[in-house]
């Protein structure tokens, strides 16, 4: 395979087709609409299911129905649309169904704007719906990583019977980069033993999130928590740059992490001992690695395209061992590398580390 110049939204859509997407239900919303448009053509020409729903509410409930049959199913949206999907996401969590949701985040709150934002970190990691659960959340920082995360997302969804949310900010969805798509893979050839297919020569199966008795609901919740604990133990992912001898650790995800990478490079050129950790999973948060690094560095700077959300997870991981500072832009503004570099220098000097 060779690299092609691909727009993030189109790349995610095509990657999903190639790793065996059987059904897509969605609703247009900027900045993710190209994803839906690409699938409207590709899924139809392949004889697979594509349906433009009447709303995000309907779309996620169509996903809920299709996932009940054991199919590889996906939807995509952007921040306000994800708010509307929270009801369905909760039911899907309560029924332990695998599915993939792509959230190409934009500026908020309210209608906000269509610029790239990471302001929905809390929404996707903490409150994807009512009830006690977290989705698995993957945060790509390039078109290539977005492509790679699509296959990972479906595999994790199937492995854990759990929803996986790809949290891409609008920058990832809209920009074009050279990237390599996976080869076309065959569709699944088996149906899971919980899927609805019609009760032929077997006992009936039921997909429900209803447990009327407190004891039953608690038992179900403990089952989900056991699964989430296992996910937390085995699925934390992050990448690092120049952390070996770093005094200051910069942490940023998605586009903010990528901008921070340029700033860390520039800081290194200036002789500052700065390293970068970029979380690839937002839930589970890579707390193990951050906790290890906290033992080696003197301070930490969190960079986000929001008013400071992931910083709470960083602080929990670090547990007060070292000072944690923050640099962020909101409103859909992507920070420039020199802004982040200035924040690095300020944090660095505040730590009174001498070059």
């Amino acid at each position, binding site marked *: 395979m060779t690299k092609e110049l691909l727009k993030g939204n189109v790349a995610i859509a095509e990657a999903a087709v190639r790793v065996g997407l059987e059904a897509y239900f969605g609703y247009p919303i900027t900045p993710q609409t190209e994803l839906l448009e690409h699938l409207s053509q590709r899924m139809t020409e392949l004889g697979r299911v594509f349906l433009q729903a009447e709303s995000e509410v309907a779309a996620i409930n169509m996903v809920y129905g299709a996932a009940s*049959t054991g199919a590889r199913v996906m939807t995509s949206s952007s921040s306000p649309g994800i708010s509307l999907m929270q*009801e369905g996401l909760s*039911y899907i969590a309560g029924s332990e169904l695998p599915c993939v949701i792509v959230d190409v985040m934009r500026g908020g709150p309210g209608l906000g704007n269509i610029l790239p934002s990471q302001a929905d970190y809390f929404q996707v990691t903490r409150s994807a719906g009512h009830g006690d659960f977290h989705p698995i959340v993957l945060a790509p920082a390039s078109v290539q990583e977005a492509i790679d995360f699509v296959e990972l997302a479906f595999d994790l969804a199937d492995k854990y019977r759990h929803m996986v949310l790809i949290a891409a900010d609008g920058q990832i969805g809209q920009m074009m980069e050279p990237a390599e798509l996976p080869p076309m893979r065959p569709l699944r050839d088996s149906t899971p033993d919980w899927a609805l297919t019609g009760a032929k020569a077997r006992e009936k199966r039921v997909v*429900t999130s*209803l447990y009327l008795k407190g004891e039953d609901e608690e038992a179900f919740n403990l089952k989900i928590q056991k699964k989430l604990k296992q996910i937390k133990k085995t699925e934390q992912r992050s990448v690092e740059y120049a952390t070996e001898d770093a005094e200051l650790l910069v942490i940023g995800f998605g586009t903010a992490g990528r901008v921070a990478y340029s700033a860390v490079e520039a800081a290194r050129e200036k002789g500052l001992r700065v390293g970068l950790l970029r979380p690839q999973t937002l839930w589970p948060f890579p707390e193990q690695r951050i906790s290890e690094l906290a033992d080696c560095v003197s301070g930490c700077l969190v960079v986000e395209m929001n008013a400071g959300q992931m910083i709470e997870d960083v602080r929990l991981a670090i547990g007060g061992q070292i000072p944690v500072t923050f640099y962020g832009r909101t409103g859909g503004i992507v920070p420039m590398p020199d802004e982040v570099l200035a924040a690095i220098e300020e944090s660095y000097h505040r730590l009174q580390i001498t070059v």
Partner: protein
Amino acid sequence: MELVMTPTEMQVVYEHPRSLADVPTRYCPGCTHGIAHRLLAEAIDELGLLERTILVAPVGCSVFAYEYFNADACQAAHGRAPAMATGVKRMLPENIVITYQGDGDLVSIGAAEIMHAAARGEQITTIFINNAVYGMTGGQMAPTSLPGQKTTSSPLGRDTHLTGAPIRMSEVLAQFDGAAYIVRRSLHDVANIRKAKKAILTALKVQMAGLGFSMVELLSSCPTNWGIAPEKALDWIEENMIPHFPLGDYKVRDDVKAL
């Protein structure tokens, strides 16, 4: 003349439908959900559809419909049964997908989902139980509550100037080209129950033939929340509901007539 028949001469004239689970329901005494369940189960049996059926249960009194039938089933969010059914049916076009929904579920919170399912001609069948009240939450005003009807959220009677008049959903859905078969029946007496059964059979045949969306609205009683004895509740359907919700065929497309 010997009046006692021997066992070999006896005929089974009534038995438990195969599609109906042999479990106690949570329905109140006198509630017509039981009749509607039985009619649907009989129709599924008669058409030999049990092994192909996937039932989508709503939120409301019939939330546990998935326990009461022997078919594969799922339980949708409030009002979203038509969307969930769409997801199921698109993946399993050979299966028979049925939503069972009440009037709060279908006419209020799920108005958008049922209309778009009908407009798309989604190949599903909806059994719509209209009892003019929210049952499970304890008798609040529904969009189908009658003018002047006293409920726990309209204690002085439904004021149509403030809350509008009852929505007649069969008439609304009949407007959509994708709707193949839309009828309203009632469960208040034997003759009407028989007509209801016939309509459910037709609705399922519409889906089997892939002709489009089908729905049978069933006027039903809720003695508990109406505060009326069960037998009087059946009279209340005839005297008060039918004038607002006339029984009849609101959409029987030509291809359905030819079935």
